[in-house]
């Protein structure tokens, strides 16, 4: 299982246990002021029925990653520059638009951050859920509406027969997010992507919605990709985690591996800046500095300017995402991108002239 989780990045489809594998994904935005490499080398995988949390600060490329998987990036200004997205044995980036539409909402469903604005104000709840069912399952409007009522009761909405005839503005934010979840579940997806599903909600509702997502994930056996900036949510909700910084995955592994023994200084910084981790009276640890300017990314490790451990190779060379060295048995299946965890003889020395990871900001075909 753990071997499967780490996997080697190879070519061709991954094994049958792997539901989703993202390889070397790069999504850039061409804007007036230049090119923003929002996603710039993202690798992770989700096994069937398992849950992965993608965590990172706002602007690190989490949401763009999710939208890229759904191929919902607007082109222009966005462009999927490179990478592979293997889902259920197929590379989504090679599907035609029509084939991709059959995947969206059917095999992969998505829940968004803003329940208040994610539902169309001029159609009833029932119509909006039934629309997806009719599209993908080729059933009558009546059957689709019944399915809508069914999923609404699944997500704990009382009186679903009445609710289907209501408009979004007649519901609270928490209720609307339940509707979004119901809509996502209506076609029995194999993968559910939840992009900050609780960020816009009241604290009391947040726990309920998370609990609901967890419960439904367990009941239906769908895989879950949960995007969040909140390590607490990750710790409680998911099994595996990928940490993103400045468009790249810097560390990934099982939740207990990553959260209990972080190998990347950024993960460490995130963990120590959670107030509950700090004893009373002690100063709260913060990560110094700011996220790099996307127009002028550091040439080496992107975290180097803020890293307390930065040393010689970090400034000029990008660290590879690999099994941290030295690795114990407990580290099986985890990966980190940090020169500190690369064997000394494999680190580029000052004499090394080749720029290992330098091609990053170059556009690679597509």
């Amino acid at each position, binding site marked *: 299982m753990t071997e499967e989780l780490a996997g080697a990045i190879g070519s061709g489809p991954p094994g049958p246990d792997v539901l989703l594998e993202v390889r070397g994904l790069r999504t850039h935005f061409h804007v007036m002021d230049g090119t923003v490499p929002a996603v710039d080398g993202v690798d992770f995988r989700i096994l069937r029925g398992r849950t992965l949390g993608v965590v990172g600060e*706002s602007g690190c490329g989490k949401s763009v990653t999710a939208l890229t998987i759904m191929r919902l990036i607007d082109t222009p200004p966005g462009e999927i520059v490179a990478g592979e997205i293997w889902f259920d044995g197929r590379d989504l980036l090679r599907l035609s638009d029509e084939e991709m539409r059959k995947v969206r909402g059917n095999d992969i469903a998505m829940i968004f951050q803003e329940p208040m604005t994610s539902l169309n104000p001029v159609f009833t709840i029932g119509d909006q859920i039934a629309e997806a069912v009719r599209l993908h399952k080729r059933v009558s409007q009546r059957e689709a509406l019944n399915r809508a009522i069914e999923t609404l009761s699944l997500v704990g909405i009382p009186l679903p027969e009445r609710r289907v005839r209501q408009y979004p503005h007649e519901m609270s934010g928490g209720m609307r997010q339940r509707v979004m979840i119901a809509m996502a579940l209506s076609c029995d997806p194999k993968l559910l992507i939840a992009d900050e599903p609780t960020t816009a909600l009241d604290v009391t509702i947040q726990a309920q919605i998370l609990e609901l997502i967890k419960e439904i994930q367990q009941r239906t056996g769908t895989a879950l990709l949960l995007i969040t900036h909140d390590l607490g949510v990750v710790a409680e909700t998911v099994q595996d985690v990928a940490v993103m910084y400045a468009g790249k995955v810097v560390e990934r592994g099982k939740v207990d591996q990553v959260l209990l023994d972080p190998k990347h200084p950024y993960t460490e910084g995130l963990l120590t800046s959670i107030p509950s981790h700090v004893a009373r009276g002690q100063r709260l640890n913060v990560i110094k500095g700011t996220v790099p300017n996307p127009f002028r990314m550091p040439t080496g490790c992107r975290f180097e300017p803020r890293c307390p451990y930065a040393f010689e190779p970090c400034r000029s060379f990008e660290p590879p995402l690999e099994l941290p060295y030295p690795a114990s048995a407990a580290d099986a299946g985890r990966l980190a991108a940090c020169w500190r965890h690369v064997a000394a003889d494999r680190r580029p020395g000052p004499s090394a002239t080749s720029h290992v990871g330098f091609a990053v900001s170059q556009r690679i075909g597509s």
Partner: protein
Amino acid sequence: MATDGQAAAPVAAAADRGADSDVEVALESLGQWQLAWRRFKRHRLAMAGLAIFLLMIVVAIVGPIVAPYNPLNIPNSKIPGGEPPSLTHLFGTDDVGRDVFTMVINGARISLAIGGFSMLIAGFVGVAVGAISGYAGGIVDNVLMRVVDVLFAIPFLFVILVAARFFGQGQVIPLVLIFGLLSWPLIARLVRAQYLSLREADFVEAARAVGVGNMRITFRHILPNALGPVIVAMTLIMAGNIVLEAFVSFLNFGISPDQISWGNALSNAQPALSLGNWWWAFFPGMAIALTVIAINFVGDGLRDALDPRSHL
């Protein structure tokens, strides 16, 4: 969209679509106006518009001095009028032999002056009334906005007629005043609308929370933010008023025939069409169209540069 403190100055350059909420960009230490100028420079049509507009202004200022002929002087009556464009008369001559090229050059002065100065009046009065209306609220706001309603509805030809009685018909300064008077309500509405929407904005709430007074909030915090749309609207007003001048002159309610404006030149040319003398009407109209197109493109560039969220 997710915006937290990480990005020091989030520029919504790419963030006008939901998908790129993650690409808000911190551009360090570039002032608002420098940034706007950079965006403006990248708008090719706007830059072309600006060049044409500046050229027109130069023509308006120095043109009449260097123009080859006297625009009003009817030459020796033995020379027949209505000559087509040639090297001696680039744009041809009218029925009494006046040089159309000279008319176009001389017309720039009055047309641009009316457009430009009425725009400035509209800007000043509109911003003042809009700010007062937004700042005072209540009954003052109500009264001012009813005045705006009425001014929008009054047909301008009336106003021009009445003004003609008091100021004499066909003079430039009364027309500038009238056009300014008729144009400010648009700006006032815009400023007031900005006030209403910005009143609840976070930065205003923050200013209020630290005890900044209402007066200061209106003029220091809200007005500068409303300035972008106001400047864009002012370009529209200038373009509109240049056409309006031509229009009222064309209907014989505008500039008196002893002065040269583009509208007058065009108005004089009406009978020329049936004679087949197209150049007589074509070139003054072209001058108007070119100037107005140029100003509108400048406005479009300014909108992109100053008011990036607007799609209009």
